């Protein structure tokens, strides 16, 4: 029987199993079994892919492109499908794969497509989206270049070129009551579920045999990962990395991520925030709760560092020792442990004391407003909530940002420019354009489109979580400067649009110290000035 750690190593990106190829020889029967067990059958894209394959007839002159990022699982799906469809379809597993080492990837593809045109069978190609883009530019077969370009530009493609893209099957979905991460959830479940779980069987057997320190830690990590609360926190962190850092989640990176959580150098909660060469971990370090500073957290760190007596905490410590977490001393490690446990009703309630401090209100607020934009039903409750966002967050942020150098201006005045100490401003009415919101329904959870009406002009702006965060900070008094480029660009674009509207108005206001001059253009020959 194989060792637990060895069994898990199948998930590591440095394992030979991280890349799927057609192997005739078996590396290890045990590891093969683990790998096979871990595979999540019939994902949405695989189901759709099989449907397309089934619909093909022998003489169809069609090419099916299965595209995605590296590590998405293209080859895995293809090797599985190949067994069943080889008789009627030609497979090319890896677009860059060639038997001629001197050929470039583009040349290989050229050959492949030329062969296809002489052949009668349909063709299936697994290709990285980036590679497809390169082919669209440099390739030789113009028909395919054209289709690839159309696909990349999200336009319709001819019937004989079918594109299946992993990105059209988002790993995260915002639903009516929150969000879901189907793939991640299924995978975590598969690794930890209680019944019919090959990995758990190996774990159970190993636990009674291996009693050394590092094995014990590995076992404790597995126990932690099996907690639904911990899984929930992990999914939440991954979603945050996706929304805030645009981090792609692929099957390979996710498996390696879980492997590092379990078999990394420390306990799961420390591994989670330790960074490292996994791209997901490197993004998650930014969310390390040990960097949070609140009164309660500071007080805890102080008390723990000074070893002040705390009965409740002692009980908690005793409890975690019972699941194998021993000799934990650092306050930061404790905070991270509290953080991963925050979502559950753990037997000991100690971590729940910090729920307020670990508040994830931003992500919740984002999802809430996102949902309102996507499925606005016209009800008065939703209407009120939307208006509240537009008035108290969006408009206020716009005004405060626009008037950042003119805080003296009133609530309806918007600064156009400051000329030698004179503030030139216009009075503007900015309101939510709720009717237009539903026109911008979106699939991607990355952003929603906010619609406003400035006087009679309609403006819109894509809002992602970072912009929402920035607007919130501006409302609270933060003033970004020009070097604070991140996401300010989006806001600047909107402001430029608003100033354009302001410049068209026929009444302007000029402020200097206590003076307020109003100039009104009556007609081509007369300007009416008041307040001199």
């Amino acid at each position, binding site marked *: 029987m194989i060792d637990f750690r060895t069994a898990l190593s199948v998930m590591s990106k440095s394992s030979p199993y991280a890349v799927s190829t057609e192997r005739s020889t078996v590396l290890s029967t045990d590891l093969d079994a683990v790998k096979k067990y871990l595979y999540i059958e019939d994902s949405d894209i695989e189901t759709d892919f099989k449907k397309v394959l089934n619909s093909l007839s022998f003489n169809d002159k069609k090419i099916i492109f299965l595209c995605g990022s*590296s590590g*998405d699982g293209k080859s895995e799906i293809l090797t599985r499908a190949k067994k069943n469809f080889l008789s009627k379809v030609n497979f090319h597993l890896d677009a860059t794969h060639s038997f001629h080492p001197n050929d470039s990837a583009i040349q290989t593809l050229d050959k492949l497509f030329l062969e296809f045109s002489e052949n009668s069978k349909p063709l299936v190609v697994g290709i*990285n989206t980036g590679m497809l883009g390169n082919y669209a530019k440099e390739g030789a077969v113009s028909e395919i270049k054209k289709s690839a370009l159309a696909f990349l530009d999200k336009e319709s493609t001819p019937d004989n070129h079918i594109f299946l893209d992993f990105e059209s099957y988002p790993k995260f979905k915002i639903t009516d009551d929150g969000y879901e991460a189907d793939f991640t959830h299924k995978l975590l479940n598969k690794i930890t579920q209680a019944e019919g779980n090959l990995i758990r069987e190996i774990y159970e057997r190993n636990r009674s045999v291996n009693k050394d320190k590092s094995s014990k830690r590995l076992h404790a990590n597995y126990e932690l990962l099996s907690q639904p609360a911990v899984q929930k926190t992990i999914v939440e962190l991954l979603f945050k990395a996706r929304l805030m850092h645009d981090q792609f989640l*692929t099957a390979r990176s996710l498996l390696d991520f879980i492997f590092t959580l379990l078999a990394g150098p420390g306990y799961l909660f420390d591994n989670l925030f330790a960074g490292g060469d996994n791209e997901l971990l490197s993004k998650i370090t930014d969310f390390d709760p040990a960097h949070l500073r609140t009164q309660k957290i500071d007080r805890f760190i102080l008390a723990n560092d000074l070893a002040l007596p705390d009965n409740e905490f002692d009980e908690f410590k005793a409890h975690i020792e019972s699941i194998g977490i021993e000799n934990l001393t650092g306050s930061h490690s404790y905070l991270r442990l509290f953080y991963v446990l925050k979502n559950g009703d753990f037997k000991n309630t100690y971590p729940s004391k910090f729920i307020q401090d670990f508040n994830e209100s931003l992500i919740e607020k984002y999802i809430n407003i996102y949902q309102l934009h996507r499925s606005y039903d016209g009800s008065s409750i939703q209407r009120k909530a939307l208006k509240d966002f537009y008035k108290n967050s969006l408009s206020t942020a716009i005004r405060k940002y626009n008037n950042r150098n003119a805080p003296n201006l009133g609530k309806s005045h918007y600064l156009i420019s400051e000329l030698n100490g004179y503030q030139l401003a216009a009075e503007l009415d900015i309101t939510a354009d709720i009717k237009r919101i539903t026109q911008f329904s979106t699939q991607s959870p990355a952003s929603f489109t906010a619609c406003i009406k400035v006087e009679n002009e309609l403006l819109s702006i894509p809002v992602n979580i970072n912009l929402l965060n920035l607007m919130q900070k501006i409302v609270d008094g933060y003033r970004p400067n020009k070097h604070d480029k991140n996401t300010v660009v989006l806001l600047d674009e909107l402001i430029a649009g608003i100033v354009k509207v302001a410049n068209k108005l026929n009444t302007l206001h000029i402020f200097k110290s206590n003076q307020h001059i109003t100039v009104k253009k009556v007609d081509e020959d*007369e300007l*009416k000035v008041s307040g001199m």
Partner: protein
Amino acid sequence: MIKEQLDIPANNKLSTYLPLRTKSLHYKFCWDTVLGYFVRVFYGKEVKKITVDDFKELCKKRLSPKIEEEPDFWLVLEKMYFEHEQIFKISPELLIFKAVKGEIDTNSKKLGDMYLGLLNGFNVPSSAENNLNFLEKEIKSEFDNFYETGKGKARENEETPYLPFLTELFQQDLLFLSKRPQYLLNNFNAFIRLYGFLYVSQMALNIKNWSNGAPTSKPCYFIIDNEKASDERSQVKNYGYGQLNEYLEYLFPYLVMNETLQEKGDIKPIWQLFEGLTDDHISKLNDFGKDFVEDRHQRKWYKKPLNWTNTNDNNELLAQLLDIAHAQFEKGKGGLTTFNDTVRKGLLGNICDPFIQRRGRAGQVLTFNQDYIVLLTNLAIGEKEKLRLHELLDEFEARGIFFDKQSQQCLIDFYERMGNVERMSDSGDAVYVRKTV
């Protein structure tokens, strides 16, 4: 093309293509004046001797009847727009006043002529004023009243552009900017500095390559200004500052020889001169070469004896002519090296300077700062909404700006921080970059 009467010039003088002269005081430019001088031609305005103050009076005359009831309002407008150069923020065309206050100094005029040569007679209609408020519109209308567009002569001395590829892009980028007057106003100076560098650097890198037809964009590697320039980066090391510095040495001698051989007022680039050489010119040019070498020997401008070899091959002939011009300035060979050093230092220190940084042990490197990257990115994307990273880099390279893999990564990181990228997958190839104007 080739002069009827080929005399041996007593000195090395240059008045075409580049503002190259041999005293360091010739490299003191007033960039504002250059800009004003350029704007006049770019918008096709005629030459008028009118100052900002004259213009202010005209505006006052125009507005007074409209504000009869509150005549003091003019004083407010005067303070707002006519003090501290605020007037120039209304429209790029108004920058013209920067060049007409008094006479234009020769240095700036020569530099201005370099840009006009690059512009090659291109001009655009009066700038759109859709983003002005009604007060500013009055001022702009008054300006348009007496500075009619399309009346000015394009250029005094017509030259064939030395770098047709760059001229085409320069025109394209200017057209793009002229449709966005506010953005142009904010970036005009940077834009002019950018193309100043590109023109000088690509001229230098192409100067020796005259036998292969029209110039093309030659590799010139930059780094982003917050990057490290380590020795391991071979492209940055081999095709960066060092390469440029090396090639700059040939600009002055080669262009002087080019000019010496051709009829005044009809000077063509070296590559066109070469294309136009026929067998009829051979004996004349051989004689000229021989006399030139003799003359320079007498003036002691060659430190080492130099021989002229008669040849019937056009390519060898022109190469030899350019060579004997260069030998006067070559280290160890010529007596005029200090003059050419002035040219090189003048170009590096006064035209190319925004893109050169001294980096400790790595020496000088060519760098791009973030503001220039944003400008360049917007120009490269142009009227399109977004470009794939690869296409964007191609556009950069077409303009003579190259980045190695490491810089490209740095570039993506920068765009990501700025929030103008869209990813289609985790692969670096599938990144789209959006423009920010």
